[in-house]
């Protein structure tokens, strides 16, 4: 019987030389890997240590605030809640602004000024403060000037100009109409004025 000596796998098996070379290369590779792996481990350790230090600093920073100990991201949560409260309050402030008239003014400085003038032949006839078209209220008033009406009228204007409260509140005052009446010996003049409020900054 003929002995069959065919090795079908002969091309698939590496030779001893090749196997030895691969083995050596692997040895070299793994030997090189050991220090590199050690270096990588050391670098990772340094990173972790640094991260730990930073976390401690972060905790110390959070502890400065009264809400410390509430959990992670406390500072950010607190800032978020603050922002929500500010937003809510800002909305309320806006709602108040919308509900208020565009400009609010008072007749009080004018009224006080006229009362103080009444000894000098000047008396209040009427005051009318109404909402204006341009946002500013419209103010009209009438004065009764008696005695030396011309002089009293001039004094009224002069005192108006030097009065600080009025100059801060009003930009101008204009006489609109004048009515004269002779009641017995004394002459009376009713002057209607229109005062324009200053626009506040």
């Amino acid at each position: 019987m003929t002995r069959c000596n065919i090795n079908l796998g002969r091309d698939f098996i590496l030779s001893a030389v090749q196997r030895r070379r691969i083995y050596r290369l692997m040895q070299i590779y793994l030997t090189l890997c050991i220090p590199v792996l050690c270096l990588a481990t050391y670098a990772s350790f340094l990173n972790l240590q640094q991260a730990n230090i930073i976390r401690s600093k972060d905790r110390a920073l959070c502890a400065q605030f009264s809400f410390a100990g509430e959990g992670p991201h406390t500072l950010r949560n607190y800032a978020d809640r603050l922002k929500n409260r500010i937003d809510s309050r800002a909305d309320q402030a806006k709602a108040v602004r919308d509900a208020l008239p565009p400009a609010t003014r008072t007749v009080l400085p004018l009224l006080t000024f006229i009362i103080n003038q009444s000894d000098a032949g000047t008396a209040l006839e009427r005051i009318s403060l109404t909402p204006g078209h341009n946002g500013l209220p419209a103010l009209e008033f009438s004065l009764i000037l008696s005695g030396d009406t011309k002089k009293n009228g001039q004094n009224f204007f002069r005192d108006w100009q030097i009065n600080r409260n009025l100059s801060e509140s009003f930009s101008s005052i204009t006489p609109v109409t004048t009515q004269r009446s002779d009641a017995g010996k004394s002459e009376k003049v009713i002057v209607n004025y229109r005062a324009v409020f200053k626009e506040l900054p």
Partner: protein
Amino acid sequence: MNSAIFIRRKSVLALWVLTPLVLMSGMLVFSRNLLECRQTGIWQDQALATLIPEMEAILDEFENFAMDYQLNPAASKLSMEDRHIHLFNSAAEKTGFVISAIHLAQDDTKKNPDSIARIALLVKGGGTAAEIAAFLNYIKNLDPLIYENQIQITPDRLHRGTMQMEAEFGRVYLITENRNAPPI
């Protein structure tokens, strides 16, 4: 040596080659990411630590502003109407101004109708010019947020030396059901 598995199997060879690389890169990437994450976190917190006092100051300003306008129906003993009537009456008592009529009406507010109340306060009365001025001044002192919408001061034809005043005041309120809001 000849029987080493990595020589016979390429997959085992690849495993031997790749394992140290994967280990190294894994450790480095993980630690680096953790460090970056912590650094970003502390930078954010440091920025917030400087911002938070400013935000608190802003909030305080808003709170102070809102406090003047706040109306808590549950907390106050007097109703809004009673409060204003009491205010006008006490002003009249102190100044000698004689009130003949008070009318209170709540305006519709188009925006935020649930949280904002705008009150129109109509007051009619009489007195001398000085009494009227004192009355207005007293109200301003008691509640500076009451504003004058409309005022008509005319001579009183029946009583010489006195004047009639018809005034419409306004007041805006923030309605808060719970004044003791939970702390931040």
